């Protein structure tokens, strides 16, 4: 059995930041990640991190832009903490070695990005996530924190409403191991692989949200999923940073006419405009990167240019890039407060798997990475404090044997005409079709019925590969289980919210309804069934 004060699950930006913060606060820390930290989904973030550093900027200005993007669903206390601490946390990253782009005086170059009304986005070319992740991993290594990379968490251990740690499978040896911890932090990322195509990496399957839900934690605002407007939609989906729009790129319809000026609009509005243009014209929408010019393209968007060439076979300086809004990042997640505490004692969550009301119904472009470092740090510190203060819940050692039995039940040599890939593919298309940018009661009803069918098909499937060493059929099986669980939660929450707000758009309820819906949705499991509650938006 492994024992730590703080166990971090997830090796992306928020997990690494939380681990470093907890260690520096004096806790013993271990980090479990199903892929190596440098292969996590944080690496694909491009645009940058917001920090109110400009002379004409302030925490209040940042907050004002967030309230617009969040469409009045933001919890003000959390926003206040975030906007006041963002600059310090971004400067910490700079101090630790992120080679941000600089202006001619050597100061951080702040660029216009998305619907920010000030220049406040710090960036490292168009690979900010990749580079920030490397620097966080450097500091993680500096702290000599034990890293369990390529370990897959199969369950959280919760005894009497208190989390005592987790059980994880070592992919390399095939062995299950107990991780006893005073505080457990979920930093396991989003779940937009339940949409196909989407902008997510293969592992972005909502394992953490699903584990927390199973363990009795509440999920908040799960219906709110941010779609990214400018994504090349073939194959896995290739995101082109919105910074391209700020640099002069245009969104054009099939006749090459620019769709009214969308630059500076919140993401959900751009997505809706594109979706409408596609439906009305019945045709395609493209991104015209040519106005950026060759030199600026090479200088500021080298990765975009490279990936368009290698993945899409397109020349950004010559060709139009077909685009479509695709599921990008969930805004909903495990309900937490500003310190990352969930509704289960000893269980914390940070980053994309968590939802603390910061983003309301729409995340401001450039906030995701800042959120990962601000709340990663805050959660790491709070988890260390909790570990130091509380008495330790005994880890029920029998759980490991139970888990072994549980796992054994999944295996069977029987072949089947059905497969994990087929179910996943159907789920992904269903979610894009019926639980996508535009939703309706009828569509959601149909989605729920089909998700039920997919769940039944899933329950009949077994893992044929009997080995436990690098058994990716097994991990895919567990991941698909999480995605199906969350798909149902998302559709239920979307069905409940009978209004349009931020990224949640209902064709049958096209207006915002502040009388009934200035509140969050909360979903938890009671007696095996999903239970919906509402929580008023916190004003203070």
């Amino acid at each position, binding site marked *: 059995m492994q024992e730590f004060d703080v166990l971090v699950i997830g090796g992306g930006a928020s997990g690494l930041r939380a681990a470093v913060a907890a260690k520096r606060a004096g806790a013993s820390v271990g980090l479990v990640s199903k*892929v*190596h930290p*440098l*292969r996590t*989904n944080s*690496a*694909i973030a491009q645009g940058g991190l917001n920090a109110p*550093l400009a002379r004409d900027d302030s925490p209040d200005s940042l907050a004002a832009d967030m309230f617009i993007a969040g469409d009045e669903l933001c919890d003000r206390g959390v926003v206040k903490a975030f906007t006041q601490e963002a600059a*310090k946390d971004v*400067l*910490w990253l*700079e*101090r*630790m*070695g992120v*080679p*941000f*782009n*600089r*202006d*001619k*005086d*050597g*100061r*951080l170059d702040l660029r216009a990005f998305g619907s920010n009304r000030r220049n406040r986005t710090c960036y*490292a*070319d168009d*690979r900010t996530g*990749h*580079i920030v992740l*490397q*620097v966080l991993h*450097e500091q993680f*290594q*500096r702290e000599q924190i034990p890293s369990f990379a390529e370990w897959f968490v199969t369950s959280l251990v919760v005894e009497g409403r208190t989390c005592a740690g987790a059980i994880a499978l070592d992919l*390399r040896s095939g062995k299950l191991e107990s991780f006893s911890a005073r505080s457990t932090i979920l930093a396991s990322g989003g779940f937009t692989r339940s949409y196909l195509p989407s902008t997510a*990496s*293969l*592992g972005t399957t909502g394992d953490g949200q699903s584990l927390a839900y199973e363990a009795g934690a509440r999920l908040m605002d799960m219906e709110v999923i941010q779609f990214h407007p400018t994504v090349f939609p*073939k*194959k*896995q989906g*290739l995101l082109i940073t919105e910074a391209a729009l700020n640099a002069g790129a245009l969104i054009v319809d099939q006749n090459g006419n620019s769709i009214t000026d969308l630059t500076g609009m919140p993401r959900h509005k751009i997505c809706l405009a594109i979706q409408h243009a596609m439906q009305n014209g019945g045709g395609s929408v493209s991104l015209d990167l040519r106005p950026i010019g060759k030199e600026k393209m090479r200088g500021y968007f*080298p*990765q975009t240019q490279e*990936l368009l060439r*290698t*993945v899409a076979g397109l020349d950004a300086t010559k060709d139009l890039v077909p685009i479509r809004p695709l599921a990008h990042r969930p805004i909903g997640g495990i309900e937490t407060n500003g310190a990352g505490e969930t509704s289960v004692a000893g269980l914390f969550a940070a980053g994309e798997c968590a939802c603390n009301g910061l983003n309301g119904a729409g995340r401001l472009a450039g906030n995701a990475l800042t959120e990962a470092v601000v709340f990663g740090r805050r959660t790491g510190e709070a988890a260390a404090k909790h570990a130091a203060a509380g008495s330790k819940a005994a880890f029920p050692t029998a759980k490991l044997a139970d888990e072994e039995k549980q796992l054994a039940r999944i295996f069977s040599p029987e072949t089947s005409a059905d*497969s*994990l*890939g*087929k179910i996943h593919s159907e789920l992904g298309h269903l979610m894009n079709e019926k639980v996508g940018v535009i939703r309706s009661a009828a569509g959601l009803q149909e989605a729920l019925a089909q998700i039920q069918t997919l769940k039944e098909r899933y329950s009949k499937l077994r*893992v044929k*590969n009997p*080995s436990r*060493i*690098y*058994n*990716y*059929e097994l991990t895919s099986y567990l991941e698909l289980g999480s995605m199906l669980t969350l798909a149902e939660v998302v559709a239920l929450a979307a069905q409940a919210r009978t209004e349009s707000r931020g990224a949640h758009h209902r064709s049958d309820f096209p207006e915002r309804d502040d009388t009934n819906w200035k509140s969050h949705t909360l979903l938890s499991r009671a007696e095996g069934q999903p239970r919906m509650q509402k929580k008023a938006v916190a004003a203070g």
Partner: protein
Amino acid sequence: MQVTFKVYRKDPEKDGKPTRSNYTLELAEDATVHDALLKIRDEIDSTLAFRASCARGYCGECMVRVNGSARLACTAKVPDYLKKGPEISLDPLRNVPVIKDLVFDWDAFMWNKIKQVRPWLEADGSAVNGEQPVSDAAMQDLRKVMSCFYCGMCDEGCTVLPVDFDFLGPAALTKAYRLAFDPRNKDSREQVKIVEKPKGIWDCVHCYEADEHCPRGIEPTKRIVALRDQAFKSGITHEAVARHHASLAASVKESGWVDEGRLAIESEGVTNIKGLMKLLPTAAKALARGKAPIPFMHSKRPEADRIKKIFEKAEQEEK
């Protein structure tokens, strides 16, 4: 299109001997090797082990050899590999311990080596209150180096690693460069001291294969050369190779050509009795054949002073 994949297999739970499985499948015209692997695992053989993460060229996790060449499975388009017929071979990277099928040991291959170079920046201790201005030129160079996505192609192409697997290799040395050349690092000599030890920068043979292989144009060899220069500049030159460099330069500067006797002695180190003793048999043999260069009794070549001027000019420019 119908394609047959001949895939390297190894099962650590059986005898661990490599075999090959053939899978024939129908694929769309725009399929990538990654698409094919997923399809094989989902529909034909769920025991096939391979890694992947971002699936669109960002992360470097799915490295595999396609018809012998190292590629990212997720960006390798199947039709590009069918010119000689409808068969494609898939193998793990060369010279790397394989764990299972296409899953090889990234830890031994790269991650553990990166760990050896103290891969983090030591910030100076003062509190974070405000920006530290630095030039964008310095940052731009670091951004280029940090565009590295750890695909391992430089190490895969390296000509030293097949002979000496303990060589740090271009990926780890490039990481050391990122830290040694960051003006914000409190003690950038740390990394130079580490990579200057055996299995580090002096073991590189400048074959430039790493530069040829790097898909991002980071030029790892250039970074290794820069680290060597940095070692000289900061006076970390106690290794034999560094002494060799210094002696060679000094004798060419003074005489216009290499004083081989002096080079041998100074490379070993004039106080290194044990090392010098090792030279004796070679010296004796050379003496017997009348070919022994007498150290420090070395005549200048014609127009040696012109060569000296070139040195002086270069030294002046360095300053």
